[in-house]
């Protein structure tokens, strides 16, 4: 029994909201994915099983459509519209990302649907919100992140290089996260009141409020942040935080040592690795380790000794990184209380012992192929009402008979 068992979600297939449907399906909702004849274009997105394109071989499709059943409906066809309406009567939530006028032109907008199903929760995801004419314009993950703020903050110290879009469909994920938060909020309200409602999710707005200080720095103090390599965009330049390790991988060195205990642990670590002689500034670390009273960080740049000790701590991190693999540097620093992160490729993170121990590697059987594959696991674990991949992504129209009764 999971949280949303017994609740039906209709999803009009669209890459922008596929993740939202998956999040609801993985928590137990009966998600019915409605595709047009010929199927959703994302069925042909790479990567493919064994790198061979073909029907039901898109790993992109597999990922975003777990825990859903699939039907085909041509909403331009009157008979299929009747079937859709019948489905709406049986549903709790309609999730869609159609162009704003599309459902209205079909006589299937919220004002109509609510007369058929008064407590329907209708969630509409559009690029700029359903009342903005720009929502009818084409938009992609890239254009949403570029116009919506995230891209301005991401990239390199060298501003002759373009700013960078963060990878992995994050504009679609953002839209989906807000669609799910909205859906769950509306479900809670409906459980009390019996009332449904229409929810307008703007992708552009979602990006705009997911930029941290880029937005509130302007809102509060009219400050403009500038992008920097691998660290927070800031009004003025800050110190570098990425260092290359001995194995060619990078680490994020986070916050350098700031307390006598931390200086002492770092000095001991250098000694352990026999690096003290090769690092003349180690003498300052030793001074930091033996510091009497509080180490006053506000004196950096004013007091020569404090500046030298702090600088030695920062430099020592680089020396250690240059000697160790990124993983050993990460674990070594963390064991000494320093918040450092290895910069993993996603697949390297997936194989890390911590994520394995938390059960992040989940198996899902593809009955049609007679094979079992490892999938990404749960974003959250609710022990009383577990997350679960209840089924593989549907084939085109796979559940037409089951859902429409063969008629």
């Amino acid at each position, binding site marked *: 029994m999971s*949280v949303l068992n017994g609740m039906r979600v209709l999803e009009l297939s669209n890459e922008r909201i596929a993740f939202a449907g998956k999040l609801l399906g993985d928590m137990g909702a009966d998600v019915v994915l409605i595709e047009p004849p010929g199927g959703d274009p994302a069925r042909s997105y*790479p*990567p493919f099983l064994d790198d061979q394109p073909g029907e039901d071989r898109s790993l992109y499709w597999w990922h975003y459509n777990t825990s859903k059943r699939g039907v085909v409906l041509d909403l331009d066809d009157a008979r299929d519209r009747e079937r859709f309406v019948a489905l709406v009567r049986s549903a709790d939530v309609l999730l869609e990302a159609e162009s704003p006028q599309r459902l209205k032109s079909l006589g299937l907008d919220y004002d109509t649907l609510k007369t058929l199903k008064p407590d329907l929760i209708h969630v509409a995801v559009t690029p700029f919100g359903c009342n903005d004419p720009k929502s009818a314009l084409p938009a992609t993950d*890239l*254009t949403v992140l*570029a*116009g*919506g*703020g*995230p*891209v*301005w*903050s*991401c990239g390199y110290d060298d501003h002759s290089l*373009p700013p*960078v*879009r*963060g*990878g992995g469909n994050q504009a679609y994920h953002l839209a989906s996260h807000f669609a799910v*938060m*909205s859906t*769950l*909020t509306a*479900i809670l309200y409906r*459980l009390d009141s019996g009332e449904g*409602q229409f929810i307008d*999710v*703007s*992708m552009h*707005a979602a990006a*705009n409020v997911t*930029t941290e200080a*880029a937005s*509130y720095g302007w*809102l509060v103090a009219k400050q*403009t942040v500038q992008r920097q390599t*691998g*660290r927070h965009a800031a009004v003025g330049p800050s110190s570098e*935080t990425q260092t*290359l390790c001995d194995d060619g991988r990078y680490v*994020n060195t986070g916050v350098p040592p700031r307390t006598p205990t931390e200086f002492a642990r770092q000095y001991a670590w250098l000694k352990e690795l026999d690096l003290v002689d090769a690092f003349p500034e180690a003498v300052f670390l030793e001074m930091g380790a033996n510091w009497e009273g509080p180490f006053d960080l506000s004196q950096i740049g004013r007091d020569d000794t404090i500046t030298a000790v702090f600088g030695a701590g920062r430099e020592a991190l680089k020396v250690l990184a240059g000697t160790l693999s990124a993983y050993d540097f*990460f674990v070594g620093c*963390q064991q000494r*209380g320093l*918040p*450092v*992160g290895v*910069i993993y490729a*996603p*697949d390297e993170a*997936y194989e890390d012992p*911590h*994520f394995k*121990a*938390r059960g992040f590697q989940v198996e899902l059987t593809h009955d049609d192929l007679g094979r079992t594959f490892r999938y990404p696991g*749960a*974003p959250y*674990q*609710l022990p*009383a009402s577990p997350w679960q991949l209840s089924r593989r992504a549907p084939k085109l129209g796979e559940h037409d008979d089951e859902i429409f009764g063969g008629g």
Partner: protein
Amino acid sequence: MSALAGIRICDFTGQLAGAGATKWLASFGAEVIRIEDPVRQGRWDILRGLDPFVDDRRGIDMGGGFNNHNTDKRGITLNLRTDKGKELLAELVKRSDVVTENFAAGVLESWGFGYERLKELKRDIIYVSNCGFGHRGPYNRFKTWGPIVQAVSGLTFASGLPDQPPAGWGYSYMDHTGGYYMAMAILLALIHRKRTGEGQWVDLACTDAALTLHGPALLDWTVNGRSARGPGKPNSNRNQWPVMSPHGIYPCSGDDEWVAIACRDDADWRKFAAVVDLPWCRDAQYASLDGRAADQDRLDEFVGAWTRERSKFDVQSALRDARVPVAAVLRPQERIDVDPSTGDFGLWPTVTHTKMGRVRVDGQPVHFSRTDWKIERGAPCLSEHTEEVLTSLLGLSRDDVAALRAEGAI
């Protein structure tokens, strides 16, 4: 009418990864009571005293980020080093639906308020903890903040250009997104409780949530054995799933001005080529997506040479008219004060903060037809609502509160 009226959150969250979650709940009418430490003046949440500031005033009530993330919450202080402080917290837990925190693993338990104890106090309590690596697993004692979560979960790596170090995210994307997952977890647990009467503890790890954001890349690894690491990878301004070309962020006239262009298919390309109308647009190789994708470096140079002569808004307007996906890379000022689409959406509500006065903050990027969000009150000053909460909710008298204050319990 509020969607979440009647739900009370006993809230220890801070920074953004936690505070962002309870901000969502508060904006839909949940009663969020923020609990802070009077001895350290709530400084665990460093944003309390950090810039940006509205004016020359400084201090723990003046942090602009703190105000942004803690709208419509009430704030009280309890000294949990004292028995009296612990008693007050116990009474508060008994009257709450949810306890939330994003401390390092084990902190709340070390104060005597682990899940078992919370459950004793309130049989169906929902407890949602949120930390970088979660409470279970080999790294549960490791410390994180946004950039560390992003590094370890692959997000930093997946953002960058070829032959460059990782660009990563220029902010704590996973503090925002960790907050979104925390909000989802709280809402899911509330729905479960409403249907079954059962509470639970959700051990949320920001790194787990972050790792789910790479689904296709992870399947490419587990199914095909292909790593995302390799020569020329990643190039996150390009699009590989599906391939689009041209697809990138191109320079425009002016200083540090850029425009993003995405030709999804041959139809987009033909529209794009009709606008640009230069000899290279007619190169036979470029007529097909495969042909363009095979020559992307050179094609990007052509496109960049064309955009460089134009302002980003001219490029945007020409390509929008042609129905090609395009967006000027907007600076904060442009998207907040110039681009009408955010203001028209009501995205920047003005709150009233007791000391700062009227300040604009991030709103929610959604609208509900029946129970829409409201963001009206600024973040609580330290201990601003201690007396109000202790008298109205716990039934103490003003004299009781004064005595507690005198003995250092609040």
